[in-house]
């Protein structure tokens, strides 16, 4: 009997030590204010990150990048890939008390598509012919053509489901179905969110989410100031820890850093209309001469990025391709290719970069040194972001270092930058073979078939080298050790705050 009591006590003790506690307000140090509060009319990451826990999407990405149910508990696709049917959870309420209905999903998607709303993501649903609600819990999407990335677009946390009656005031007072309720926003000072006691989601043990009583976002634009605020204890959690501060925080026993891979790519872009970059041998020579590992080690302190092993898709994912012929410098091969192309003594390459972001400017100097070894003289031109961006979009560059952020679908990483009609194809690059593969990838729903197609597409990209992928920017969040349960998402998303709790 006594032994039993001891055992019981032990179990109780262990339980107390391991289980999460509810309560407490997380003070989060953020880099920037939201750009407007209406999620449908902005593309700002700051707005998305600070409001994604006020809203829900139809489906969502988990921390591994897999699509999982959210407001829709299940879905199916017709064999021709043209009809998608989603079944909604029955137990969801908006923060204003009204129950979620299929009509709200129809309204939200139509709102994003409506030209009058001026959503920057109207194009996400361009292939959607119609959205209908045959009953209160069923939503049917009819597409003009098969479009496998539809789920990824629906999971994007600015494409959220809003209640129609609140649409006119969403810019001042967000109303969603998410785990936190919007309380107030004071520009440059703070945004306050409060726990939604009626939130539908439970953890694996059946406890209600979220654990926190609330989140207060505090705006600290200066990166060093954010780190200092965390070290001094005036915030519990910060975003965008600069690479140079990671070690400082790790050395502090009361603090920790989580994070790493982020869904993006940074590449050396070529303008294929410019000589001598119109010659594929010259582009290959540059790719053979570069050493991306050294770029990461020197320009990014070894911590700010993860070396690109294949193309634009980060390594380790289901669609990643790792049979790149480049990566380790092969100077003999590079010189040979330059000779074949008619540049045995190299040439001068104008490299335009932005001076505003260190992670895009510093690699230029490393590249300059690396290409000098094969006789290519790199001429660096640095421009402030507001000057650089219009030049880049207007394709007024010979070579440049930049990249884009994706979400989880390979289509984001491949179609946009490399298809002839891709919105992110700033290289004047056009290859009918690749276009065909990328279109096939869009229309194929089966994952294995899709992977085979995208493998061939990436092999083709590496052959033609319209850009040399250098690295994937890493993203880190800093936190006090009593902040538990926070998980880093690789797609710049703070959905991990839903399961965060404070052990103090």
């Amino acid at each position, binding site marked *: 009997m006594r032994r039993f009591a001891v055992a019981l006590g032990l179990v109780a003790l262990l339980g107390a030590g391991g289980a999460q506690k509810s309560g407490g307000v997380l003070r989060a140090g953020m880099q920037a204010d939201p750009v407007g509060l209406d999620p449908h009319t902005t593309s700002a990451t700051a707005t998305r990150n600070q409001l994604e826990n006020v809203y829900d999407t139809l489906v969502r990405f988990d921390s591994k990048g897999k699509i999982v149910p959210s407001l829709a508990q299940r879905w199916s696709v017709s064999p021709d890939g043209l009809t998608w049917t989603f079944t909604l959870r029955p137990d969801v309420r908006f923060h204003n008390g009204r129950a979620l209905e299929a009509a709200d999903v129809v309204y939200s998607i139509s709102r994003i598509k409506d030209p009058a709303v001026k959503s*920057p993501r109207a194009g996400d649903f361009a292939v959607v012919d119609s959205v209908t609600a045959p009953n209160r819990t069923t939503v049917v999407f009819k597409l003009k053509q098969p479009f496998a990335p539809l789920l990824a677009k629906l999971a994007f946390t600015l494409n959220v489901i809003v209640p129609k009656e609140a649409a006119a005031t969403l810019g001042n007072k967000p109303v969603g179905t998410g785990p936190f309720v919007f309380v107030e926003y*004071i520009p440059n*000072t703070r945004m306050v969110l409060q726990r939604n006691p009626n939130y539908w989601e439970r953890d694996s043990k059946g406890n209600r989410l979220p654990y926190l009583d609330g989140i207060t976002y505090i705006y600290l*634009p*200066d990166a060093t*100031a954010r780190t200092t605020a965390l070290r001094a204890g*005036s915030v519990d959690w910060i975003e965008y820890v600069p690479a140079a501060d990671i070690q400082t925080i790790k050395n502090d026993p009361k603090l920790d850093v989580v994070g790493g891979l982020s869904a993006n790519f940074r590449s050396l872009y070529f303008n294929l209309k410019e000589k001598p970059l119109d010659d594929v041998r010259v582009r290959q020579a540059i790719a053979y001469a570069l050493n991306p590992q050294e770029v990461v080690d020197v320009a990014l302190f070894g911590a700010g990025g993860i070396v690109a092993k294949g193309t634009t898709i980060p390594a380790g994912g289901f669609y990643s391709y790792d049979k790149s012929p480049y990566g380790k410098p092969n100077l003999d091969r590079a010189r040979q290719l330059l000779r074949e192309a008619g540049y045995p003594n190299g040439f001068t390459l104008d490299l335009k970069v932005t001076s505003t972001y260190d992670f895009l400017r510093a690699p230029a100097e490393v590249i300059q040194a690396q290409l000098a070894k094969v006789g290519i003289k790199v001429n660096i031109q640095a421009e402030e*972001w*507001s000057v650089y*961006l219009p030049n880049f979009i207007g394709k007024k560059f010979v070579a440049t270092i930049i990249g884009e952020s994706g979400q989880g679908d390979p289509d984001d990483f491949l179609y946009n930058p490399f298809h002839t009609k891709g919105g992110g194809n700033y290289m004047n690059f056009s290859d009918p073979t690749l276009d065909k593969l990328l279109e096939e990838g869009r229309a194929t729903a089966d994952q294995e078939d899709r992977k085979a197609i995208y493998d061939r597409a990436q092999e083709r990209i590496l052959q033609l080298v319209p850009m040399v992928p250098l690295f994937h920017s890493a993203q880190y969040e800093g936190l006090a050790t009593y902040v538990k349960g926070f998980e880093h998402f690789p797609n710049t998303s703070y959905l991990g705050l839903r399961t965060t709790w404070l052990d103090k």
Partner: protein
Amino acid sequence: MLPFLLKRFGLALVSLLGVLVLVFAMVRLVPGDVVTNLIGLEGNVSPERREELRRLFGLDLPLHVQFGQWFGALLQGDLGTSLRTDRPVLTDLALRFPVTLELTLFALLIALAIALPLGVTAAVNRGKTLDYLASLFALVGIAAPSFWLAILFILLFSLKLGWFPPTGYVLFSEDPLGNLRSLFLPALALGMSLAAATTRIVRSSLLEVLSLDYARTARAKGLPERAVVYRHALRNALIPVVTVVGLQVGNLLGGTVIIEQIFGLPGIGRFALEGINLRDYPVVQGAVLLVAGAFVLVNVLVDVLYALIDPRVRFE
């Protein structure tokens, strides 16, 4: 006195008009494009849509028409709408100006609280150790840039000693004491160079006055040194101090830009900087106009104050 005031205010209005034209022209001379900045790289936006946005913002109109529209609205008290957030510029300025004003006045107060006693002490102890220490302070204070001091103060007072929060702003209406605590370090960093410069002026001005005939007369009729310094000399010695301090308030206002950024304070400077980075014209114009207006107003006040202290000025 009245003609003097009218003349000063008239000149102030002319300077403000000049600022208006200059600011309007300058923000547009800087290369960069607000529409591209707003859309960014990842927005899925066609060239036609970009043109439409430009038209909606009125950026396709000739410059003189744009200026006329802005100036017309300004006369009715409308500073326009931020292209980025769609909020009225005036609302945001009204929200932020108190922060910048409080920071500036706090810095001024700290500067005077340091400079007056230190300057007087240095003058009275001329050539002694205290004088040299005060001069050393003045030298270091003038040489050290405020942003560098700010970082040092954060390291010492926040991280090491934990006396003040390193960053962030507390609303006065919610916690007056916390508000002062959150502004103390920024105000100290901002006010340091003014404190140093003022120490030197107080010292040299007081020394000059103390060598004048009436100071000698005061001493000769047997007044104690304390009375000579504080009752007779100091008042006259402060005239040049008022001028210099008054003009320096404008520099303090300008200095808030970097200090607000470092300490994460929601003031005008940070607002203007965000506007500049995005080429959000109405925001930059509004913020610069407000700071310039404050600058001009302070100058007029200094002139008036000067006339009050020193009657000779009025009759020139």
